[in-house]
């Protein structure tokens, strides 16, 4: 009986072998091939050139993941405290933005963040830009004074004629795009884990003398770790590898891994072998990160989503 039911997985196992394992295997083969088809390690040899891109991508993705956690955890926690009426729609409310295609949402951010965009228009109207210029002027004077007085060499060349704040085409905008797009993936698993927490555990902790903060630190947070871990995975992985966000909000100034890979396959520097090698290395690094993190959190097979 038990074995018979296990056969139900059969079709999907075959499917996975064909469309998950075989393709990955192909990437591995490509990564070790030269353009002519022979075995080579050249593709990996080039990797050192792209080290900077790796570091940058992981850095931005880490920052984005951290911010998502910082926003997503409290949000999930607060949502879990709401009444049942809200809980019925909570999940959809979080997922609804995803129904607007993510390119569109990102594009909307472009309209907001551009130099002539809505935010700058707003800042201009309210006088925040002028205020910024004013402050920069003060700072320049202050620094100049200090430089004279103490012989320092502080920056005195802050722009005092700004017409806008530079927001788009910066790493900050890219991180914002990542946070915006992947925040739901952080909230959903954490929310569902907190929802399932046994309420009597919280009472027990309070009963033993723990203050609200301590209950959170010692009981709620450790118990919601599985959700946090899958949230981190589900934000970090797409962040590391995005290319559309960096292009739309980053202006293509600083390549991310996703851009680099996309370039090799569909972009301006066709080199499928190199692209495969970069993909492979990226995947391995990500997997190692996730593995270490899961060990660290004792998450084991606790991948949770809902």
């Amino acid at each position, binding site marked *: 009986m038990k074995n018979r039911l296990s056969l139900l997985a059969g079709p999907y196992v075959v499917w996975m072998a064909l469309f998950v394992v075989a393709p990955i295997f192909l990437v591995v083969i490509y990564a070790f091939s030269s353009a002519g088809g022979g075995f080579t390690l050249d593709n990996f040899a080039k990797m050192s050139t792209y080290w900077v891109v790796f570091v940058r991508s992981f850095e931005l993705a880490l920052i984005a993941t951290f911010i998502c956690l910082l926003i997503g955890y409290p949000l999930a926690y607060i949502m879990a405290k709401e009444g049942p009426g809200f809980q019925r729609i909570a999940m959809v409310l979080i997922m*609804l933005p995803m129904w607007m*295609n993510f390119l569109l949402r990102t594009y909307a951010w472009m309209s907001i963040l551009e130099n002539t965009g809505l935010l700058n228009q707003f800042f201009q109207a309210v006088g925040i830009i002028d205020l910024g210029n004013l402050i920069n002027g003060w700072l320049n004077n202050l620094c100049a004074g200090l430089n004279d007085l103490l012989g320092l060499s502080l920056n005195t060349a802050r722009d005092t004629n700004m017409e806008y704040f530079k927001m788009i085409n910066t790493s900050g905008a890219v991180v914002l795009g990542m946070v915006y797009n992947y925040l739901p993936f952080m909230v959903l698993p954490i929310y569902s884990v907190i929802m399932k*927490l046994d309420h009597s555990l919280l009472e027990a902790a309070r009963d033993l003398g723990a203050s609200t903060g301590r209950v959170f630190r010692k009981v709620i947070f450790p118990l919601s770790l599985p959700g946090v871990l899958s949230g981190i*995975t589900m934000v970090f992985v797409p962040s*590391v590898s995005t290319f559309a966000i960096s292009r739309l909000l980053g202006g293509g100034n600083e390549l991310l891994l996703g851009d680099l890979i996309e370039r090799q396959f569909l972009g301006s520097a066709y080199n499928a072998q190199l692209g495969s090698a970069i*993909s492979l290395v990226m995947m391995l690094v990500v997997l190692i990160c996730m593995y270490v993190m899961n060990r660290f959190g004792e998450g084991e097979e606790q991948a949770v989503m809902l």
Partner: protein
Amino acid sequence: MKQRSSILDRLFMGLVFFFLYAPIFLLIIFSFNDSKSRTVWQGFTLDWYVELFQDSAIMSSIYTTLLVSVIATVVATVAGTFAAIGFYNMRRRWRNPLITINNIPMMSAEIVMGVSLCLFFVAAFGLFGTAAQWLNNTLGTNLPTRYYLGFPTLLIAHITFNTPYVVLAVMPKLQQMDKHLVEAAQDLGCTWRQAFWKVIIPEIKPGIVNGMLIAFTMSVDDFVISYFTAGSSTSTLAMTIYGMTKKRISPKINAVSTLLFVTVLILLVIVNVREAHQAKAKNAARS
């Protein structure tokens, strides 16, 4: 979690939801803008909606998107549910590695998945072509010898990245289910097939529905994997939009989003009202 949230909590929640929804409302507002501008309001118009329905490229990509999402969601839901039940009933020795493989599409970057599937399809097409050539030559058949990326490959890709989410949503429900329920059903005369339909499926239904919702969302939202697997003659809405983001996005696309958003919102309200009704009815029956 019965503690009520404080005003500060509510404020925070409000801000985050504002952050999530503001860009979307922006899109909606500018779908009524009487100009192509994305940032300057120049009066109200419905022209974009009219144009939208005349734009065959967008309409056909909407159609493709919905078609691939629906089929992929259905297939992924069925396959994922069966797979989850299968995994659940497997020995740990088999289950653990299979679940790891199941997680690969989620753990590996979209782009890697798109690329690997693309390479795989092209390689497979090469093999098919050679085989067809050989058959044509030896048996005189008239099989096509060239194959291209297109709707079928797009569909396969969507199914492949959707199914893991369904598995992930269904597994916990199986774990929560009382193991004896199946035995009870068998004991009452069910064959294991009947037990499956009459007990297991209804029990894990919430998980299946959740998985389905996620799968559908992922399908609609996906761009990267579609981009690599749809080929040149099939285009999802995301791909059309991507094509446009490289030039200028027509407010027609804003109109599409608005329509989508409103549809979902209406569905949401209907479902919610119905559930609230049911909950009320249940409560009434209890007391």
